[in-house]
């Protein structure tokens, strides 16, 4: 048997969430836990039925995933010197004062008010259960016996709702997802001129080359008896790579005020239904069905899968909408993924390239304002919660017992600071995105004043050859109710962690 190449991924070592969204398992619940008894917790982890990323036929009916916060690793007995190898963002946590400020988690979003993950209700680990509805309860019961009860103080169970690919505001969601370059076929390039959905494996899986052609920092250990099972580091074969085949998982509970959203757009539209739908679509950057607001281009975007609908809904960039007249610059999807490349335009000669690099190229106001998107992609794995409220029903006033609804936002990335935090800070929460001013993301923005910018609650709809329209006084539609940074280990790393404190 041929030996597998060094950089070939051992799917049996990767937690399944990296490869699958487990959409067919329509039930999911997340247990946010604190460790009560470290020895019992390790014992539970050793026998936990954690699912890997192997393709199975027939597909499984249950899946379980585990991820840890930095305090969680500490509570399990992982050595401080090992924890020091994880990223600053992970170690510092989402609730650090400066991070909270960067992420827009201030005022009503502040961690002190969070239902979980805040300073008063820190979380150690999350256990994610996925299953077919009929198998769900039995699966949870079987996985959470006496050892579980001894090990964990149950912080909170987060329930999810299957809204069939539609997020609570009523828009199709999860259309644009990066496609992982599992086989590492794409050569690392210094400059890419085309937008692609195929992203280097190392952007999502630690231990492999990222978009810079380098390996992201992660804990590398000197070999000893406790870590013989870990894989070697590709860039330092003498070291054991605790990060390899693992990644970071960002989780945020985003409560969505669906009534406020639809009531606001209807008020703005003077009660005109069609105009309200248009404004809502402009704010999101897609129609409710998920169609882009800019024309579909001729060539499909590489890495958009095999589903014709998926391919079509991804078959665009914003190159043909330089004025924002079709899809406003500040629209949610245009902020989240500007679909740009490393270079403005495509230079036809080396000289032209040099001219642009040196800043002597076109001097348009909006030229070259955004960072290249391929360094800022995330793999989204979130699920909705709370019962569905159709947009047409959202116009009615809220009953006294109106249930809370929203999104348990989950994303995977190898570099929290450069991926999740960058998108949230520089693109979503920024009042200066893409040459705009006075507006943050129309859906996610907290619309809090920043020094010198008292107003950040505007949404601008650009128009060609006419004055733009300004929508003012956007209320905050999304409230952050919890959040944390987790490490989603490989199965090997999980076994290492589960033995960490046992001498």
């Amino acid at each position: 048997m041929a030996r597998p190449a060094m950089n070939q991924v051992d799917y049996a070592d990767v937690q399944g969430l990296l490869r699958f969204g487990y959409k067919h398992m329509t039930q999911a619940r997340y247990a946010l836990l604190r460790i009560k008894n470290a020895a019992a917790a390790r014992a539970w982890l050793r026998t936990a039925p954690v699912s890997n990323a192997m393709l199975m036929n027939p597909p499984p009916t249950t899946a379980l995933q585990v991820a840890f916060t930095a305090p969680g690793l500490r509570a399990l007995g992982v050595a401080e010197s090992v924890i020091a190898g994880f990223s600053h963002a992970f170690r510092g946590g989402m609730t650090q004062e400066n991070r909270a400020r960067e992420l827009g988690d201030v005022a009503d979003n502040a961690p002190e008010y969070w239902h979980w993950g805040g300073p008063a209700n820190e979380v150690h680990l999350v256990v994610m259960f996925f299953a077919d509805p009929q198998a769900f309860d039995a699966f949870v019961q079987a996985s959470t016996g006496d050892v579980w009860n001894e090990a964990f103080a149950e912080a909170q169970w987060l329930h999810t709702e299957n809204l069939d690919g539609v997020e609570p505001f009523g828009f199709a969601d999860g259309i644009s997802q990066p496609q992982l370059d599992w086989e590492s076929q794409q050569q690392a390039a210094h400059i890419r001129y085309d937008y692609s959905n195929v992203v280097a494996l190392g952007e999502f899986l630690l231990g492999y080359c990222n978009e810079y052609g380098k390996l992201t920092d992660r804990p590398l250990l000197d070999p000893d008896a406790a870590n013989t099972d870990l894989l070697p580091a590709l860039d330092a074969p003498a070291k054991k790579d605790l990060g390899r085949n693992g990644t970071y998982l960002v989780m945020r509970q985003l409560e969505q005020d669906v009534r406020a959203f639809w009531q606001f757009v209807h008020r703005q539209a003077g009660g005109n239904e069609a105009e309200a739908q248009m404004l809502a679509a402009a704010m999101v950057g897609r129609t409710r069905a998920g169609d882009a607001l800019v024309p579909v281009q001729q060539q499909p975007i590489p890495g958009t899968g095999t589903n014709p609908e998926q391919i079509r809904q991804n078959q665009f960039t914003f190159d043909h909408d330089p004025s924002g007249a079709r899809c406003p610059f500040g629209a949610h999807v245009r902020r989240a993924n500007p679909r740009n490349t490393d270079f403005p335009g495509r230079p036809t000669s080396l000289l032209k390239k040099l001219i642009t690099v040196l800043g002597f190229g076109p001097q348009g106001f909006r030229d070259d304002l955004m960072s290249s998107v391929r360094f800022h992609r995330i793999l989204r794995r979130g699920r909705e919660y709370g019962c569905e409220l159709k947009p047409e029903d959202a116009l009615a006033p809220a009953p006294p017992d109106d249930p809370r609804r929203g999104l348990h936002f989950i994303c995977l990335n190898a570099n929290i600071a450069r991926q999740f935090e960058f998108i949230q800070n520089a693109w979503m929460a920024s009042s200066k995105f893409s040459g705009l001013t006075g507006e943050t993301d129309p859906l996610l923005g907290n619309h809090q004043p920043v020094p010198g910018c008292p107003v950040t609650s505007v949404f601008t709809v650009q128009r060609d050859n006419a004055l733009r329209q300004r929508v003012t006084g956007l209320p905050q539609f999304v409230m952050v109710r919890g959040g944390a940074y987790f490490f989603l280990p490989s199965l090997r790393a999980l076994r290492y962690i589960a033995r960490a404190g046992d001498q």
Partner: protein
Amino acid sequence: MTPQTQFMILAPIMPAREAELRQLLASMNHAPGRVNPDNTLIPFAQFDTLHVARLLILDDQTTADVGVHGLPVPAYPLYFALLGDIDGNENAFLQELARRAAVGLSMLFSCCEGFTSTADLVAWMKRHRSPAIANYVNCRGRTLWQVREEAALRDALENYLTRHASALEKMPPREIHAQLAAFIKEETAISRLMLSAEEPTPLGWWIKDTLHLIGLPVLLLLALPLLIVAAPFYLLRLRQLEKTDPALYPSVDQAWSDALALGEDHDVTNQFSAMGSLKPGLLRLLTTLGVLLTVNYAARHLVRPGRLGRIRSIHFARWVFIGGAKPWALVKTARRAAFFSNYDGSVESYMDDFINKAGFGLNASFSNAIGYPRTNWLVLDGCADECKYKEYLRRHTLPTQVWYKAYPGLTAIDLERNTRIRCGLESASMSNEEISAWLALL
């Protein structure tokens, strides 16, 4: 045109007074990273020509790095620095500074070596000047007055557009332009708005600038034969050094990184201060000088307004040799350099911008410092080793105790937009395309 100048005063701190100095600096802030512009020590807000300023203790954590080159660790004094970017003449500014902040400056400088309460403040500051070797100004000639006038102009337009939105939204671009131009004309006529004309360029400055513009290429031309002969030897030695320079990649201390972050992201703009030691040897020193003189020349004479290469988020930046104002002093004494900038966005986006848009320049200037990720041919690789580069940069970053910017909430792009709006308003002959592009700025 009123040119921008920079000033920097640098003095060693008396070790016994460091704690006191830190307390004084902290008293100038509302909170870490949030300056009180009306603080009693230096009431920044009173200065009409001061764009940005900072006060900091150059607490370089990396002086021991020279050890990897087998050198002994020098015992540097701990320096205190006061620096800023201003409109017009440095002399005039220092006079004004001494006039408005005499007591505060005396309190601060009395924590430094060689200051006595009877000293002439201006003379003392001039003796402690630490000029930049390279300097960048986002838009030469844009004064603080202009920034404020144009910001007020935009606010006035925004209010007018809000009040008349329903009528204007149906109007063709040229009519909107005419109506707004008329409105602004009225506003300026009754002095509710000011749009001052450009001041004449000071003759002395113009002569010096022109000499600089011509002088450097002439010198280069004269030295060309020598440079051609030296080039192969230089490249050979450079390649050798690049391959053998000891690597040094300690990750930055979490507490240090957290302390830096506490002072950041309070405004849409951030300050950045960093410091490090140069690699030993004449080649590295000459390379640094050559690169920085080139950067300075390009920034002064070549770059387009608002752009440093492809980067559009930097207001002001400078490179300074620390402890040796004159380059020749470097050979013997100071081999440390510092970089100070004022940029828009978070430090993460700033670092990414540099890696992706100006990596070559970054490599050329920073790779002569100890511990920088390995480069090839001076400009290649280096910072493309993203994680190592970011750790390197954060490790060399200095906490800036006090940082002031005269226009919080405004990015370099905002300033450019406001200037473009004004230029468009004042222009009587624009094509339809130009009018549409102008309208899109509003």
